[in-house]
């Protein structure tokens, strides 16, 4: 099994988009695309599935809301329901308006932080992570498309040269 890949390097996002569309049309499997900034519509052109982070955030928010409600109910109503300035602590609903700011903030806090952590975990980002950029120029002004080679090296190289790549490299990956 070959472990060769092609690095097709572009210097314009429009050309990259066209190349991605052509590559998809030619049924070559795109392993990865590296860009220095978000290219609008690239995910759609690559045919990536939409993210489900928003759904996660919604569920985390509900968890936060539940946590806030449970916490305030346990502390203020169940455990020590003393009279503080005449606020009615007989049941949760009696004193609910006073708890809403906390419930709201808990919801936002859980939704935001847990979603960010989910994002880090799903995209494998952490402080001492080794950077994975295949070509240092991709963080500045070049765009790189990585395509797997399956015994069709020659064909692929000429194909990518025809898509406007400024550089086409064949790399052996370990």
């Amino acid at each position, binding site marked *: 099994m070959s472990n060769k890949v092609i690095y097709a390097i572009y210097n314009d996002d429009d050309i990259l988009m066209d190349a991605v569309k052509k590559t998809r049309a030619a049924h070559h499997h795109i392993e990865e695309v590296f860009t220095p900034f978000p290219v609008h519509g690239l995910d759609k052109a690559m045919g990536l599935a939409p993210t489900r982070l928003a759904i996660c955030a919604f569920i985390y928010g509900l968890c936060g809301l539940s946590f806030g409600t449970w916490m305030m109910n346990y502390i203020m109503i169940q455990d020590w329901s003393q009279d503080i300035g005449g606020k009615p602590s007989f049941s949760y609903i009696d004193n609910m*308006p*006073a708890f809403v700011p906390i419930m709201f903030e808990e919801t936002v806090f859980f939704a935001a932080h847990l979603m960010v952590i989910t994002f880090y975990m799903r995209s494998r980002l952490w402080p001492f992570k080794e950077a994975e950029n295949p070509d240092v120029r991709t963080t500045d002004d070049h765009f790189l498309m990585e395509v797997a080679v399956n015994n069709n090296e020659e064909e692929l190289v000429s194909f990518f040269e025809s898509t406007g790549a400024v550089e086409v490299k064949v790399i052996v990956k370990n």
Partner: protein
Amino acid sequence: MYTFSSKLKTFSFVLMAVGLLGIGYGFLTAPKDIQAVEALLAADSHGEHAEAKQGVATPSQNSETTHEVASVGKDKEVAANHNVKVDTEHKEHLEHVYHQLSNKPWAALYVACIFFMLLSLGTLAFYAIQQVAQAGWSPVLFRVMQGITAYLPVGSLLFFVFLLLSGFHINHIFIWLSEGVTKLGSENYDKIIAGKSGYLNFPFWIVRASIFLLGWNAYRYFSRKNCLAQDESDDNSFYKKNFNISAMFLVFFIVTESIMSWDWIMSIDPHWSSTLFGWYVFASFFVSGITMIAMVTIYLKSKGYLENVNSSHIHDLAKFMFGISVFWTYLWFSQFMLIWYANIPEEITYFVTRIQVYNLPFFGAVVMNFLFPVLILINTDFKRITWVLVMAGTVILLGHYVDFFNMIMPGTVGGSWFIGISEIASVLFFLGLFIFVVFTALSKAPLLPKRNPYIEESKHFHY
């Protein structure tokens, strides 16, 4: 060009006719005098009423008797006094209910009238913001917005007539307009209202109203005129003019909107005041206006009249519906929670009435205007599905009607409220009028502005 479909026209006439009949019925069946109210109450719930009477009487009797047990003569006197007291209380109660019931058809009319007028004002504010913000997505919707704001002159006129009728004592919606309220020594004298009479007096109030209504209508008139002139022009001078008058309008609007909310809504409860009330009212009719833009756009689109409007435009409107619904809730809660928390008697009565007497509409409005739209419109895909939007929009519009109902009814009809023929008929009448005026206006000008500088961007808007 849009042609007003004859079906919709007939529908609007039917709504107006049914509404007028219902409004007339409401006025005819309102009690004419106190005797009618007495008969009504007796027939309605005699046992309950008598019980309530006794409930009021017993505590005073008990305390009096325990203190004066020894003196029999005194006891008799107390009993006689007590009878007189019950009688006057009963009479006062009847008079109270009589005023509430005779206010009811007026208040029903007032809620619907102000709701539809402010809805088109909310649309106008949204339109002005889009102009000033130089929004690239909305120019394809400008004619729809102008169509909806075409209701403003008609609605303002009817509304102004209503204010005049109140001022000439044809109805008693505004208690501070009653005779003798500010006159020392009169039995109607009210010290608090008298103290506010420097601001709350009929001439000043009606002059303010006319300035506000004229100002808003003037902006609407010139903005539409310039927009149409821009179509035929060969430079952007009319566009720039519109930009300038929109910016000036927004400044005028935010000041007049706040004062308007004190004058036309808050003054119904003249013993109560709230500082964020203007914003709260604004959020309510602003979101209604945006929802109405979305509904009319969806309707016109479904009839094939808005070829340049795509699902991204609808999506944007849905996001505004969602966001401003949350904004409304924020203000609703801020107003409620601050007053609930501090619980100062002179402020809290406002919410005590609403929670005790208007429980379902008061909290139902929060469900309709917050919970429902938040759960439905939070989903990106749902914001593009027509039937979901129509459903959410209907709930939002009904919810904000209920919101205005909650603001106006407790101070005018109090415990005698009911969403019956008067209320529904008033809504139907104004809805019919609204549909007729709006769609007539839509058929007067092409639905696509021709040479707005952002029209190309707007046509290809994609989110």
